[in-house]
């Protein structure tokens, strides 16, 4: 209860909350005091001044009997608010009965009630109110009943939704099995839990009732003279709109203010309650950064083009940094000083735990990081084009046709509302100037190339008609619409089952070999990377910590982290009776990177120097790079412990 009050309190301390509370307090105060204070002045008839405009005596003028409109509006507050609250309570009680019927009356009758409520909800409240007004008769009493019952279905639906979610909980099921009566369950377990949202919605409903009541009175179906509420005053005022507009506008304003007061009050609390989770921005950032880390470190002098061999590099990255604003405004750097280059047809793998910054690196290279994220690099070249500059049409076309992306989750990476063929064809239409028909033909051809069976028919299907493996093939096919020089595959097989994984990897491999396409494969699975790639980049806490040929992974890995990753892979000889090996400790928190080596806290070799200075990525002259003060000591140990173990990769992905 105390926390609830605190939560409401904090919800109401927002600017909107304060304004709504003040407004509501004024309205309620008026409702109580106005008839007492100004009842006489509102009723006083001033015959010499009929239908007068505003004057010092009558701020808002007078009506056709010479009564002061301003005071009549103030005095009408009580009746308007009273009637609105009365009909709201009728609506809430009826809604509660309707909504809890499935629980109280058993499934069968409950179903019937729910069905009726569902049909009734489809009709707008005003229409229901009009219908009920016919039954209950014209007048204040009829209108209260009509508006109350008209609001009941939607409140009933709300209650039943809330109740249903509570009724499924374990403790309610337990109480039921223990033989606790239905009514008792309702009162003890269900109502306390649905009370809060119900109260909030009732407040909002009171605002709607107030407006609806004004509507009915305005139509002449509500309050009848000589009694008057705001709607009645409006009705009278509107007839004289030409001579005396204030007579209609002042009560109109009162209705709007009071309606807003109830509405905003409810909304403010609803929003306050709904926002119990941490800031949305923070959550999103955590996803993006995968929990990686930052701190603008000195740039290591790592070579950008190790052993390029033949011709120009397909991709050259130097000093790539990605930053996001942190929760308290400071910059967080989930990718720091990443440098590497790729030759034509080369397969490079990037491995690391969740949060090591590998996916962000891929997105940064592809220029797909959106604000508020920022990408900086000393060099970022694709086929000799500097990607750091804005994407003009020519550069967009180059990327669109030569730079292919394959994303992790094929289930969500296709637009669900468009046919697969169209989604592939779009590329050709945009960048290769094909018309719709040609683009479709090209799409079918590409689907065939990635071995999607019955490509002609499949191209006309929607993504949901494709299996996961098929979608990933289609996604690769999309990258082949142009003539790619580089495929960046970000965890392309993580969401697929094992047999399909292999097929997709083989497909990527075949494409690479056939067309000399470079492949940047991002994966948390060091085994897959070792099999598919020629070179492996190991990332930790946003940096590359080791860069070595894939066939030397098991024999020449020098960074303790790489070795830990390898040791964490189980194989056929792993003793099933022993616990799986893990890398001790946790990945680095993005917001505070340690001063020295980020891996020091989890490293068996760590000493004072590791904790003080971050080791640079050093080239050994043969294209192998490592960032570790103890690389040689680590390399001297046997590559893998006799007993290798683990769950996937230490602290597993996803």
């Amino acid at each position: 209860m105390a926390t609830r009050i605190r939560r409401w309190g904090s919800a109401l301390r927002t600017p909107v909350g304060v304004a709504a509370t003040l407004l509501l307090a004024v309205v309620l105060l008026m409702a109580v005091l106005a008839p007492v204070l100004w009842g006489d002045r509102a009723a006083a008839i001033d015959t010499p001044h009929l239908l007068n405009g505003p004057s010092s005596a009558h701020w808002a003028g007078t009506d056709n009997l010479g009564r002061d409109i301003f005071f009549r509006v103030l005095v009408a507050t009580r009746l308007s608010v009273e009637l609105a609250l009365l009909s709201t309570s009728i609506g809430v009680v009826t809604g509660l009965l309707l909504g809890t019927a499935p629980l109280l009356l058993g499934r069968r009758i409950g179903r019937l009630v729910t069905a009726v409520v569902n049909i009734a909800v489809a009709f707008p409240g005003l229409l229901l109110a009009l219908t009920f007004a016919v039954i209950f008769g014209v007048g204040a009493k009829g209108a209260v009943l009509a508006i109350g019952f008209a609001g009941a279905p939607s409140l009933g639906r709300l209650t039943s939704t809330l109740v249903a979610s509570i009724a499924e909980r374990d403790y309610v099921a337990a109480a039921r099995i223990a033989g606790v009566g239905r009514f008792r369950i309702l009162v003890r377990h269900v109502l306390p839990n649905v009370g809060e949202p119900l109260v909030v919605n009732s407040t909002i409903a009171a605002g709607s009732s107030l407006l609806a009541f004004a509507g009915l009175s305005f139509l002449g179906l509500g309050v009848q003279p000589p009694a008057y509420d705001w709607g009645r005053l409006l009705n009278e005022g509107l007839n004289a709109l030409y001579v005396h507009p204030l007579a209609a506008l002042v009560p109109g304003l009162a209705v709007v203010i009071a309606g807003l007061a109830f509405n905003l009050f409810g909304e403010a609390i609803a929003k306050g309650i709904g926002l119990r989770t941490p800031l949305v921005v923070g959550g999103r950032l955590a996803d993006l950064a995968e929990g990686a880390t930052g701190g603008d470190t000195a740039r290591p002098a790592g070579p950008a083009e190790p052993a390029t061999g033949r011709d120009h590099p397909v991709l050259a990255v130097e000093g790539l940094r990605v930053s996001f604003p942190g929760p308290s405004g400071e910059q967080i750097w989930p990718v720091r000083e990443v440098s590497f280059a790729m030759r034509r047809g080369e397969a490079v793998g990037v491995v690391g735990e969740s949060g090591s910054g590998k996916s962000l690196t891929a997105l940064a290279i592809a220029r797909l990081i959106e604000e508020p994220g920022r990408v900086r690099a000393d060099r970022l070249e694709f086929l000799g084009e500097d990607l750091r500059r804005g994407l003009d049409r020519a550069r967009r076309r180059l990327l669109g046709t030569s730079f292919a992306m394959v994303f992790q989750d094929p289930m969500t990476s296709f637009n669900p509302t468009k046919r697969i063929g169209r989604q592939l064809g779009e590329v050709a239409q945009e960048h290769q100037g094909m018309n719709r028909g040609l683009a479709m033909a090209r799409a079918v051809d590409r689907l065939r190339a990635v071995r999607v069976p019955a490509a002609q028919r499949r191209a006309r299907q929607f993504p949901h008609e494709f299996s996961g493996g098929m979608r990933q093939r289609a996604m690769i096919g999309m990258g082949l619409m142009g003539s790619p020089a580089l495929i960046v595959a970000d965890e392309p097989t993580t969401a697929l089952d094992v047999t399909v994984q292999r097929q997709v990897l083989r497909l990527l491999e075949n494409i690479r070999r056939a067309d000399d396409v470079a492949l940047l494969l991002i994966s948390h699975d060091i085994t897959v990377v070792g099999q598919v790639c020629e070179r492996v980049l190991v990332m930790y806490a946003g940096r590359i910590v080791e860069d070595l040929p894939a066939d030397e992974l098991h024999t020449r890995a020098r960074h303790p982290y790489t070795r830990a990753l390898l040791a964490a892979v189980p194989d056929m000889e792993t003793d099933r009776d022993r616990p799986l090996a893990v890398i001790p400790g946790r990945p680095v928190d993005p917001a505070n990177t340690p001063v020295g080596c980020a891996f020091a806290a989890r490293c068996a070799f760590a000493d004072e120097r590791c904790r003080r200075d971050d080791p640079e990525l050093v080239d050994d002259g043969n294209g192998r790079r490592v960032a570790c003060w103890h690389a040689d000591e680590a390399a001297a140990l046997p590559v893998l412990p006799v007993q290798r173990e683990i769950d996937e990769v230490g602290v597993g992905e996803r």
Partner: protein
Amino acid sequence: MTSAIAEVRTLRAVADNPWVRFAVRRFGRLLVSVWVVITAAFLMIHLIPGDPVRAALGATAPVELVNARRAQLGLNDPLWLQYTHYLRDLVHGRTGTSTLSGLPVSQIIGDRLPATFELALYAFLLAIVISVPVGLTMAVLTRGGRRRPAELAFTSTSVVIAAVPEFLIGAALVYVFGVSLGWVPVASRSGPSSYILPVVALAIGPAAVLARIVRVETLSVLQADYIRTARAKRLPDRQVYLRHALPNSLTATLTVAGLLLGGLVAGTVLVENVFAWPGLGSTIVQSILAKDYPVVQGIVLVYGLNMLLINLIVDVVLALLDPRSTIRES
């Protein structure tokens, strides 16, 4: 023999087709709802406490007249017989006569319906035409926490506008544009210019609500993986937003728009009374006040069936826009 088997197979295939199943399910629900509306309209008259004929004719009417009128309306028959007659008459298109004017109810409705229909249709279209571009633009401008002040201004303005009932907007519009500026006619249905104020008065509130929903939906769609895919295809921003984001945000928007359309049709009742618009809305109010129950019954029936029709259309459009939901449900 083989053809019979083939036929059975085709039938089964048809029955398994998700679209067919959707149609059957949706049509079944429509039938039930229509029955409920018709029955509700029938019961409405019978739930009125006391004698509706006496109430309609007034306390001073002679007993003979009341009895004759009761007999004429068949109110002396047992309820089930009245219900049967009512259903039979409905099927034959006989909807009774107005106690006030003596005109057939169907004729009154036929005269008044087009005016209301036009009003609602134009207002709905106007609301969509305003809200979709505004909501989409605001989503693009404020995505990822950009331009906070613009976001705050937009949300608070739309909240306030949406909270003002349409008849007050109508009254304000009449005052500003009709009375003060004298630009447009203030009441009744005459030339095209007479449509402006009522349509705007009806459309503004729903447009504000819809624009907010378009914005919120688009914001969440812009975070989707397939938008990243579209950007990875290096499509121009315009295409990413219009071709990939908009259709996906429209499904939820249309659902809400459908709900709003119902409210909008109901809103015609109030707006017609502000503008003295010769539609169903002003007629039903006059008839309720005059206790002209056959007319009230007829109009309630028309409004109710219209709501069902609107919901049906929304569901079908949704199914076409988002085939997944159809499949999932069936």
